[in-house]
């Protein structure tokens, strides 16, 4: 069951076509990467999903239903540029945002207490937001994003500006949410984060969907038959006829095998020639490489 489906969504701002017939599906309960370079249209897509703006044409389905006014309450959105009312006190602020998302006052209080305790910041209740450091403020922002227990979480560059400890904290929270069955859209242009966290991705470039699938599928789609192995002893004399040597150093080789050569055959060949193999593995392209290749090709 897909929690989110976009079908031919179009959004135009005056002369700029921000979203160009974008369609993709997001399976329920996964961590979904919404990727793309700056200005690709990610934020425009997110704003349509969160009902901040309306699509010019096309449909967005949440839980199988076309987007309606009840849906925003089921979504938690943390924008990339996120802010807080500086002069408000932390507790009061989160309560305010929680109630705006539909929580009753008593429920909001309970949830705020729960989260402040979880993050070990209970004594911040009466602190003014402007007294907090950026990392602390981001914790507050995160709490206010999830406090109404949304089914779909949209995080736009959630780690930007965070130190490693706080970044880890948020990452752990994301995993915990996933375990509870929350579907999470993770929007970023930092590919190294995506590889670690996401299961499914969609790559948007110039308003179009240019790539979609699980991380594994995408990497396999773009693999280049590269292999890396570590050895002891000597290499067979004509081993470089089996492919292009990408990198070679004492005891290590990265080789791009010829199209007709299977990895098994090559391994057999090396072993038969008495090269002592310590490790042998396929090198899949990083999403970063895929991203660059895909974006540059247009």
């Amino acid at each position, binding site marked *: 069951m897909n929690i989110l489906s976009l079908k031919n969504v179009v959004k135009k701002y005056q002369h700029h076509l921000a979203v160009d017939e974008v369609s993709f599906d997001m399976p329920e309960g996964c961590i979904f990467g919404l990727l793309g370079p700056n200005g690709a249209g990610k934020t425009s897509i997110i704003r349509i999903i969160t009902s901040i*703006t309306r699509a010019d044409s096309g449909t967005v389905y949440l839980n199988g239903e076309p987007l309606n006014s009840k849906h925003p309450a089921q979504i938690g959105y943390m*924008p990339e540029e996120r802010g*807080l009312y500086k002069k408000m006190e932390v507790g009061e602020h989160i309560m*305010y*945002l929680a109630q*705006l998302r539909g929580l009753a006052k008593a429920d909001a209080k309970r949830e705020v207490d729960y989260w402040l305790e979880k993050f070990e910041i209970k004594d911040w209740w009466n602190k003014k937001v402007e007294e907090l450091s950026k990392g602390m403020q981001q914790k507050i922002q995160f709490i206010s994003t999830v406090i109404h227990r949304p089914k779909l979480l949209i995080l736009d560059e959630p780690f930007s500006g965070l130190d490693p400890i706080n970044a880890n904290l948020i990452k752990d929270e994301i995993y915990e949410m996933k375990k509870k069955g929350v579907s999470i859209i993770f929007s970023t242009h930092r590919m190294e984060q995506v590889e670690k966290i996401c299961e499914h991705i969609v790559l948007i470039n110039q308003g179009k969907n240019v790539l979609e699938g699980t991380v594994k599928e995408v990497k396999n789609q773009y693999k280049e038959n590269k292999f890396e192995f570590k050895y002891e002893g000597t290499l067979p004399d004509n081993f470089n006829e089996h492919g292009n040597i990408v990198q070679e150093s004492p005891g290590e080789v990265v080789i791009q095998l010829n199209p007709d050569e299977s990895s098994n055959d090559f391994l057999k060949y090396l072993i038969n020639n008495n090269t002592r193999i310590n490790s042998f593995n396929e090198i899949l392209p990083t999403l970063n490489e895929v991203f660059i290749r895909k974006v540059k090709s247009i």
Partner: protein
Amino acid sequence: MNKLWLIIKREYFTRVKNKMFILTTLLTPLAFALYLFVVMGISDYQSDDLRRVAVLDKENILNGLSDESNVNFKFENASLGELKETYKEKNYDAIMVIPPIKNIQDTRLTVFYYSDGALGLDMRFMIEKKLQKSIRKYKIKALSLDAKQLEALDTKVSINPEPIDDTKADVSPMAAGVGAAIGGMMGFIMYIAVFIYGMMVMKSVMEEKTSRIVEVMISSVKPFQLLMGKIIGVGAVGLTQLTIWAILIPGIAFLMQIFFGFDMSGSEDLSTAGAEIDPDDMQAMVAQVTTEIKALNWWAIFPLFLFYFLGGYFLYASMFAAVGSAIGDDLGQGNSLTMPITIPVIMAFVIMVVVIRAPYSSLATWSSIFPLFSPIIMPARLAFSPPWWEILLSMVVLVATCVFFVWLSARIYRVGILMYGKKISFKEIGKWLFYKG
């Protein structure tokens, strides 16, 4: 609706609980009290420095000079030279020499005042006035004029307005003055309110845009709800502040009268300032003014003033919000965009000043109906009981314009708050009106 209420509450309470707000609200009446205290105190103040002045009046022009509380005049017969030597022993501070009047037709006379210290302005004016009076008497006598006849020359004319229709209530002479004062005050309050609270709304919108909290808010509430919540919340703050002032300021003025016995009606200051007002007349005037004030139809004026306050505030606050949403970060653009809003307000104020002097003119009629001016001008006219149909028309036009402007501003606001980095011109803002949701 619930969300709107939440926003209104937050906008209201964050401001009302703010220390600066409480301070300003309470200190302004106190500042006013201090002002009253100082003005009243000082105008009553006369130097407690007792001056003793020796007067040399060889020709006996003055025929004596009455003492004041801080000046004693003593006429001496010695010569100036002698006095200059002995004045200190005799405990004098100054010597005043009255020269002979050679030509009675001469309207100028120089009197010499010899002293060590400087002669303060207050003292100087007081003495000059006394001398003027005495010399006038002298001249009347010298020219053998009949003093009584001369007094009869100046006739103080006062017009007593009466309605032609006998059934209408009599209008006292003070009506115009009182009307002007009350009207001017109400117009002024409106003028200030539009600026203070309108700008408060604009500043808030800009802050939300700069701090980026607006994106978070917009994911939970509609832009229109945020806009209206803010405008209503700030409006409530304005009403609260004005109500507190409306109670405290007259209250303090009243208390000051009781405790400090400031006699507002018979102040010495007025007579020494040259306004030839008989104290009895003064009392009568005050009594009339009070009656006039009481006679005004407060049951109608008060709600109407409230109506115009709200109408004017909503009208201008929504415009300020729209501009605020366009500016956001770039404070430099601020002036060029806020000017078109402030110009009608200032114009209205200027016109009001003219209108209260001619409250039944066609300028008054039309400017109190024109919606950008009416919130300031109609309240000023209310003290003059304008025709009910004019008031009604003005109200209807104001409401319609208000609704239209709020709608217009909302359309600009919802685009402006998410728009960053673009160069903002009126052309650009105009485009926003047509952006789809």
